[in-house]
């Protein structure tokens, strides 16, 4: 196949139609797809070849008029109503059975919470650790319990063939069992505003449960294996601060962190405040309490999502942005 299809048409790590199947439901989803594809191709070829045949055979020739044929034929019409009906019943049925599997999280699943917000994913592991990439073990059922902080998002892993909307105000669930180790794109499929197309991250599938546990252990031990500034940088990148606060002095939705520590800030209510550790801590936990002049009060609170130690690391990081 690859030989004949120019590079432009072939998908780097996969077949012609789909990314390589990497979850247990993918195989079923694809086989349903190909079943429908074959049926449709059959009918499409039938329709188009009849059309072309008639176009050629019955094209107008001078002096030759159309032949009167019967204008109606019940047998013919019933057959082209009934046969497609039967075929669609089969399609419905195979699609239905696969869907029920996709929508029934197994009871022995490894559970990960997902919080979606504009425009980052936060995956929270059972030990409380939050990461912006999804890590899972291979060959194990994983259930995501998802909620959104703002608008509707939708979590989609093409290689797994599953997708589910993440709706504010309710929890939705999605599950899969990965069958291949590696890294796969994970993205937001429901339009969610400015950076919708950048709400893309990856799923890392670890070969064994042991590998995964080791990764989680190390990752969540951040304060031990990183300096406070490094740890702060890590939170800055993974918890979404980066969306609104730059490091180069150019304000985005919020003030830039460059040279922030120690600065005098004018507040929206007219007063001023000196940026110190207490002010930063308050801004992270109660962002609406003291809003800097010229910015909208749109920052979400991180209360309950960052520990004191995490916040200290962030402050160290901000302090380091001279």
């Amino acid at each position, binding site marked *: 196949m690859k030989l004949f299809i120019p590079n*432009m048409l072939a*998908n780097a790590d996969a077949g012609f*139609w*789909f*990314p390589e199947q990497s979850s247990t*439901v993918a195989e079923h*989803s694809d086989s349903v*797809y190909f079943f*429908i*594809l074959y*049926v*449709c191709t059959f*009918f*499409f070829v039938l*329709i*188009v070849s009849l*059309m072309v045949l*008639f*176009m050629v055979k*019955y094209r*107008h020739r001078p002096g*030759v008029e*159309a*032949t009167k*044929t019967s*204008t*109606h*034929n019940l047998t*013919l*019409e019933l057959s*082209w109503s009934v046969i497609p009906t039967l075929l*669609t019943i089969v*399609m*419905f049925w*195979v*699609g*239905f059975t*696969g*869907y029920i599997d*996709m929508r029934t999280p197994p009871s022995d699943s490894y559970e990960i919470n997902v919080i979606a917000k504009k425009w980052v994913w936060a995956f929270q592991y059972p030990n409380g650790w939050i990461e912006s990439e999804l890590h899972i073990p291979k060959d194990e059922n994983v259930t995501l319990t998802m909620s959104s902080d*703002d*608008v*509707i998002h939708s979590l989609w892993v*093409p290689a797994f063939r*599953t*997708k589910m909307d993440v*709706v*504010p*105000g*309710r929890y*939705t669930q999605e599950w899969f069992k990965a069958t291949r180790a590696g890294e796969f*794109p994970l*993205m937001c*499929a429901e*339009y*969610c*505003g*400015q950076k*919708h*197309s950048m709400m893309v991250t990856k799923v890392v599938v670890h070969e064994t449960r042991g590998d995964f546990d080791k990764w989680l252990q190390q990752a969540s031990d951040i304060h031990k294996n990183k300096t406070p500034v490094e740890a702060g940088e890590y939170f800055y990148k993974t918890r979404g601060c980066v969306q609104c606060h730059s490091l180069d002095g150019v304000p985005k939705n919020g003030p830039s962190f460059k040279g922030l520590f120690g600065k005098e800030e004018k507040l929206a209510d007219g007063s001023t405040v000196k940026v110190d550790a207490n002010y930063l801590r308050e801004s992270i936990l109660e962002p609406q309490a003291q809003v800097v002049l010229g910015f909208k009060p749109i920052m979400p609170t991180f209360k309950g999502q960052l520990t004191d130690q995490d916040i200290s690391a962030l402050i160290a990081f901000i302090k380091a942005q001279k």
Partner: protein
Amino acid sequence: MATVVDSSDPKSNFPIQYRELNYLNCSSGWKSWFFTLDHKRIGIMYLIGVTCSFFLGGLFAVLLRTELLSPKQLLMGPDTYNQMFTLHGAIMTFLVIIPGVPAAIGNIILPVMLGAKDVAFPRMNLGSFFLWLFGAAFFLAAIALGGLDTGWTFYTPYSVTTNTAVITALLGVFILGFSSIFTGLNFIVTIHTMRPPGMTWFKMPLFLWALYATALIQILATPVLGITGLLLVVERAFHIGIFDPALGGDPVLFQHFFWFYSHPAVYVMILPAMGVVSEVIAVHSRKHIFGYRFIAYSSIAIAMFGFLVWGHHMFVSGQSRVVAVIFSAITFSVSIPSAIKVFNWLTTMYKGSIRFTTAMCYGLAFIFIFSIGGLTGLFLATLATDVHLHDTYFVVAHFHYVMMGSSLVGLFAAVHHWWPKITGKMFNENWGRIACLGVFLGFNLTFFPQFLLGTRGMPRRYYTYLDQFQGLHVMSSCGAYLLGLSSALMAATLIYSIYRGKKAPANPWGGASLEWMCSSPPPHNNFDHPPLAGDPYVMESVVYNEEIGGYVPVECQGDNKQTVTASGDNEA
């Protein structure tokens, strides 16, 4: 009939309106157009409005496709991109496709096909055009007032929280909804009360059946859209929690409301086009349409089932599994009437005498494109596959195949088929066919690669994308350029014909329905005497006449032209 009058004799003693005066030149000045009650003039104004909107929406499309040539930023930032795809979608759906065939072509042709002087409520008809203009003005205002970035679907809570011109646009949609309802109402009453003697329901041309089914949907579904829009306005303006969970509302409720209108609305877009194709295929193959009743019933069936399947847009929205399963099952029921029509059209061509006029070329292109559009719907109706495909470029490709590929190509077929009737001029068929080929190739090059983009993992409404998708995006953009150029060529060919085209005979293609029985362009009142309707698909009832370059009724052929008008008088 009047049309057979020998126009080479200027001093013929027929009443003047038979030869010279027609609806285009019977009065002049902008007021005679703007305040006209003539359905044909109103239709023409719609057609002009729709065409302008189409080229505006098309310009946006070309800019969007240009941006997507590369995963990096080329022309515009993400905010502009998001506004542009929203306006592209909203303009194309609400200003082009929904009014395109029914309001523009339907208005011009429906009364003539019925042998009537006008629609039942001419004033309401003019009113609905003004509403359309007014609604369109709100859309333009929304563009000017900081754009709109919600997507044409206005999904909450995004549409409640974004600070773009949501309210302005929604008011536009609301007003356009009234325009649509008025048109529908008018058509229903017209068809019920103004059919001529001899035209029973089952002798009605299929285009009228299609318009009738469309009108039913318009008046039953549009109010729901209006109410949904108003609720959203109320929510935004007064912070009453209806759809936004932050205020205690339910975002999925919005989706139910929205699709309860918008799913039937997609049939408002496709049914009239199907009606056009039934006429075009029969006339240009010179064959009686095959399975008339099945086609007529299938229009009504599509209109009815169309109300029951909205939930298939929400298989991954978090709605319950049971609901999803029920919606999937019902959705398949819509595919059957569509399939029936395709087979009927093909059988109509069997043993015909097919002329590859531009209109017929568009008709054939319709069958090709609609088959792909309809068949790919099956992948989306099937639960297991929709979960992967929902909200990807596969869906984008599917609905462009049906909405733009089929509805719009149907509109193009209609415009070419009835152009001689509407303007009294013949256009250059060669240029017409070249434009048609360009539209066909450009369209498929644009949208076919998008099926692959979708299955391979490209979500819709993305401003940037993973590098691996670039090749297919570039193909798609090239197709869009070809499509744009071809549409411009089509417009140029048609406009040129107004100035330089040959004069059109009353019946250039040999149709047997009533609109071909009056002169081209029709006189102000279409018919002076209600014509007698027969089977609209007995193509043998008209024969070609060298002298006129068009078809004339068999009984009038040859001998005495005077009897023609005389017999018209007798029928009255």
